[in-house]
């Protein structure tokens, strides 16, 4: 079971994402932004960071990296793809997910342990959670405010595509307190907070994040 983790120039959390993949029991494979070859991976993670320095818009330039051409094609064929933070921004810029992430409402860069509720446990990346599970994982971003038009918001809510929602104080002004969404098929998930930083209680606020990575393994074994 191989899970690829992409490194763009400016990625920061690729090593933690790879560590989380290994902790879940899979093999992590390093993928390079300039290499369109996915090296036979079964799933892909786009990690957090500031790819291409966030120039132009977050994720706007990464979207055109050679590796993204292959990932977009495979994602449309059903391969599980998880975008965390900057990876979520890349997925929106790639139009694999609707909407966009904009500057936090309070303008501050946030770095906090965030309470979330898992709203949909039927996606490739959330199936190991119990329905309605409340979890605490780190949230750290400057542009994490999820925005979309009213029709898209209604569609996401109606189809159960909001996969995680912020609880407690609203951190960044996201519409309907959205922390993560999926595509219609449930194989592509974007999440603003960082599960890869919460896979054991020694280094994170909880071990709640590990379930995102075990979910995709269960999904692949089930095939």
């Amino acid at each position: 079971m191989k899970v690829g983790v992409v490194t763009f120039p400016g990625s920061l959390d690729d090593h933690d994402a790879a560590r989380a993949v290994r902790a879940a029991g899979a093999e992590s494979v390093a993928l390079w932004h300039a290499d369109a070859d996915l090296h036979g991976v079964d799933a892909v993670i786009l990690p957090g960071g500031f790819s291409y320095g966030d120039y132009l818009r977050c994720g706007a330039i990464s979207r055109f990296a050679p590796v993204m051409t292959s990932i977009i094609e495979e994602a449309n064929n059903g391969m599980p793809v998880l975008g965390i933070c900057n990876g979520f921004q890349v997925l929106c810029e790639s139009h694999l997910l609707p909407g966009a992430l904009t500057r936090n409402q309070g303008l501050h860069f946030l770095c906090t342990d965030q309470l979330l509720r898992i709203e949909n446990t039927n996606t490739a990346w959330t199936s190991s959670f119990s329905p309605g599970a409340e979890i605490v994982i780190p949230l750290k971003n400057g542009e994490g405010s999820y925005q979309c038009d009213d029709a898209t918001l209604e569609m996401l809510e109606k189809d159960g595509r909001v996969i995680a929602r912020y609880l407690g104080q609203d951190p960044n002004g996201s519409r309907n307190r959205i922390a993560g969404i999926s595509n219609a098929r449930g194989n592509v998930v974007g999440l603003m907070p960082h599960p890869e930083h919460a896979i054991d209680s020694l280094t994170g606020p909880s071990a709640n994040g590990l379930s995102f990575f075990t979910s995709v393994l269960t999904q692949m074994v089930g095939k």
Partner: protein
Amino acid sequence: MAKIVVDVMLKPEILDPQGQAIGAALPRLGFSFAKSVRQGKRFEIEIEGEPTQAQLDEVARAAETVLANPVIENFSVRVEK
């Protein structure tokens, strides 16, 4: 040589916290004229010779593809004399 200018602005319905922060700072500095401020981006693209309609169309395609994100932003293309 001609200069093609692409202006990109957040759509009116999208919250602009940066513009709001600037709007809040102006009166603190004694500038009391602004009812509101919104911040955008301006791209200046130089080309050889006078631009043809086909070139302007190509710039518009580039603006829609990469310079702007049509989900949250509007753009305009013009030639600056």
